[in-house]
């Protein structure tokens, strides 16, 4: 007498559906909690890139004066010489990263940390600074007569 094979297809299908349901549920849970986890431990953020900054009306800058301004997260210095011309530089000393200041007596830039000196055009002229200051482009917006500073290469200086 031949042996009768009666495979239990219904049990096997149920198990398959259970596994499918469980897997989908797990994936849904991961999908729900992963954004929460990433929110609580966000990746390191890059510093926001700033390529220009508006410093307000040109008339607010007296002749033979200098002022530190914020360019992104870096300090800049804007100088208005006795000739009325505006010049702007990254205010970080090229020696040891101190912030430079304008010296109206000699019409130049001075770093108090190690007595480094730059001329009004940002060239290092005495003391330890090894390089000139990084220049920024200065534009006066027509009409509004406002000072707009931009880095030379369009990126944050």
């Amino acid at each position, binding site marked *: 007498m031949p042996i009768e094979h009666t495979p239990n297809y219904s049990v096997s299908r149920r198990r398959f559906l259970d596994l499918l349901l469980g897997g989908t549920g797990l994936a849904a849970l991961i999908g729900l909690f992963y954004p929460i986890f990433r929110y609580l431990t*966000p990746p390191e*953020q890059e510093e926001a890139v700033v390529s220009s900054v508006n410093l307000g009306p040109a008339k607010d800058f007296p002749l033979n004066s200098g002022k*530190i301004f*914020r360019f992104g*997260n870096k300090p800049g210095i804007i100088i208005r010489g006795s000739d009325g011309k505006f010049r702007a530089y990254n205010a970080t000393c090229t020696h040891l990263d101190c912030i430079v200041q304008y010296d109206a007596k000699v019409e130049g830039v001075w770093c*108090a940390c190690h*007595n480094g000196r730059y001329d009004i055009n940002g060239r290092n002229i005495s003391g*330890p600074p090894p390089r000139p200051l990084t220049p920024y482009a200065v534009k006066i917006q027509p009409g509004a007569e406002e000072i707009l500073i931009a880095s030379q290469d369009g990126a944050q200086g």
Partner: protein
Amino acid sequence: MFWIREAQVNNIYFKTTIISLLIIVSQAIAVDNCIECHNQIHEQIISDCKEDAHSRARVFCAGCHGGNSALADEEAMNPKYGFVGAPKPKDIPRFCARCHSDAGYMRNFNPALPVDQLEKYWTSRHGELFKKGDYKVAVCNSCHKAHGVFPSGDTRSSAHPKKVPSTCAKCHSDPALMQTYGIPTHQYTQYIDSSNVHGYALFVKNDITAPVCNDCHGNHGAAPPGVSQVGQVCSHCHMLNAKLFRASPHKDGFDALGTMECAFCHQASPDVNAPLARIHTIVKPMAKLAGTVQPAVCVQCHSQGDAGWQMAGKVSAGSDSLAGKFAAAEALIKRAEKRGLEVSDARWQLNGDIHRAMLELRTAIHSFDLEAWQQHFDYADSLVNAVNAQGLHATQELSSRYKYFLIMTLIIALLIVLLILKIHQVENDRKAALTNKQGGIRR
């Protein structure tokens, strides 16, 4: 008449051009017999001189040693051609000065080059001893070499800033030689010590503007700076600190004690009983230098109860408290930045105004005036407190976000559980209804 003058001018130009060409051609084809003969026996010397400053100025062997390089054999070294050969140490300063002290002659090569080296040399300790007949002391070639002389800005020069310490050390680290003069020999090892802020800047950070031996002692006029001149020497770079120090009561006190002003406090492990022991290891300035507990330097002279001791205590406590607050504020801002919160104003304050205010505070110590120091301290403290407040605000904002997230997560989790229970309940109800229905049919 105009055409006659023009012809004369053209004639002069023509003659000058022809003469110049003849000189160039004759120099090009001329054979330097010094090199021809000495090429074998003095190969290294000739190789050293090949690209040095003298060769580039077309000053070859005969330019210094005399003789006639156009003649062959021994005749080239006939004294009638001014041959002097290798000068003896006692002749070297004047030997080099024949050209280097002649402003008119040196103008042909480099008008900007100083011509006072010999004059300065006579004022140096080396020159003083030389004049007394001591020819073991350093002369020109001891520092610049005899052959292969390069400008000090050239990295091949033994007088290049990165080479100066080892050049001076050739003699000053030689115990046998220095014993004669009663000079210690630890200067070089102290200078290259990794804790030496200047040596570290020079050798590790490659900052060739960092001071080396000759920046403090002079080069051609090298001599130890006097006790009361050290502040002056340091002031070339540390101008504000030196200015405050010179106006302070410490200036006269330090000079009277024979301590080397700036160098005494800023050397590694200062000891008032041996004030010059480690002055060539100038350590990175740190807040704990001022205070009433070792390694604070104030305790070397001040004793408990005196005004200096009290000021040192206040400065130390203030500096510690400010440093703690600064570190806390920075940690808060860093944490907030990492969590994506907007704290760029606070970061700007930390890197800009606070950095500068703390530098000014450190400088203000050199006035040794508690009131002046306190003003700087209050300003720096107020800036740090403001940033600290911003950091705390950001932290509170972060805590609130976490709290709301936790509540929402719990609510969602509860919702999921309730949904599962509801599904089970619906399923059970459906099964029960089905069982009841089947029971009814059987009946």
